[in-house]
């Protein structure tokens, strides 16, 4: 219960950040990716701000914290290999990101704005996730868990 409350508040703050940064505005995202046309560099600064804060936080946790406040240990992905799966997955994701202007977090937050088109995007995204996970389970016989 305590973990769920913390996760909820974290999600809320994350969502507010996405809205302030305009990551939840598909026109803004597409403007950022439109480097050969009318380029809007704003989202590069979103990355600078987020990576700046998180890098520091991560470094501090390595230096100071033995364990997280509400959990027994820090969990990191186990995968180390740069394989075809990572490369193909990132390329497929990027193509969809450019085509729609949404990545997963902002899609969920902007689903709250009330525009039915976003709900359709989110439904398709969930379907795409399920398709991969089912296909993967059939192909490997196990559920992969080593992901970000």
């Amino acid at each position: 219960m305590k973990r769920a409350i913390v996760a909820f508040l974290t999600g809320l703050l994350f969502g507010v950040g996405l809205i302030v940064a305009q990551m939840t505005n598909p026109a803004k995202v597409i403007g950022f990716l439109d480097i050969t046309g009318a380029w809007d560099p704003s989202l590069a600064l979103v990355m600078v701000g987020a990576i700046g804060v998180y890098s520091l936080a991560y470094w501090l946790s390595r230096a100071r914290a033995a364990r997280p406040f509400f959990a027994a240990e820090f969990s990191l992905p186990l995968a180390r290999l740069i394989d075809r799966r990572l490369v193909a997955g990132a390329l497929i994701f990027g193509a969809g990101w450019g085509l729609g202007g949404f990545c997963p977090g902002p899609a969920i937050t902007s689903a709250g704005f009330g525009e039915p088109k976003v709900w359709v995007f989110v439904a398709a995204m969930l379907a795409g996730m399920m398709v991969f996970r089912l296909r993967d389970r059939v192909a490997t016989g196990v559920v992969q868990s080593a992901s970000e």
Partner: protein
Amino acid sequence: MTIVNFTPLPALLGGVLIGLAAALMWWLLGRVAGVSTILGQTFSTAEGELNWRLAFIGGLLLAGIGAQWLVPGAVHFALSAGYGQLIAAGLLVGFGTQMGAGCTSGHGVCGMSRRSPRSIVATLLFMGAGVFAVLGLRLGGAL
């Protein structure tokens, strides 16, 4: 190339808030704040690991509902793509983030901050693919 609509301060501030939220998830729960993985694992998660994931997703959604309700003037949103394009985009984003084990938050923010080679490669690739997709839209007359 021309530079348009540049909003450096809100972008930086929003980024700081995102980084702070991800940092809290790391310090308090010891988890990577990667939205696509948290979302994807709600389909196949172990007992006891589902609630916090759903709560995080609920927080993201409530931020959108609350902002639209309380401060609609502060919500900037413009979406020109049609339903067909959005369905195709959604399928690609869903499939690709599960296959590539991360998205803009997990690889782009958290992984890049840890200087994870996998995340650096993934981020460069999905940004590159996004640039090409938008170039395709522009050449196809959709922009």
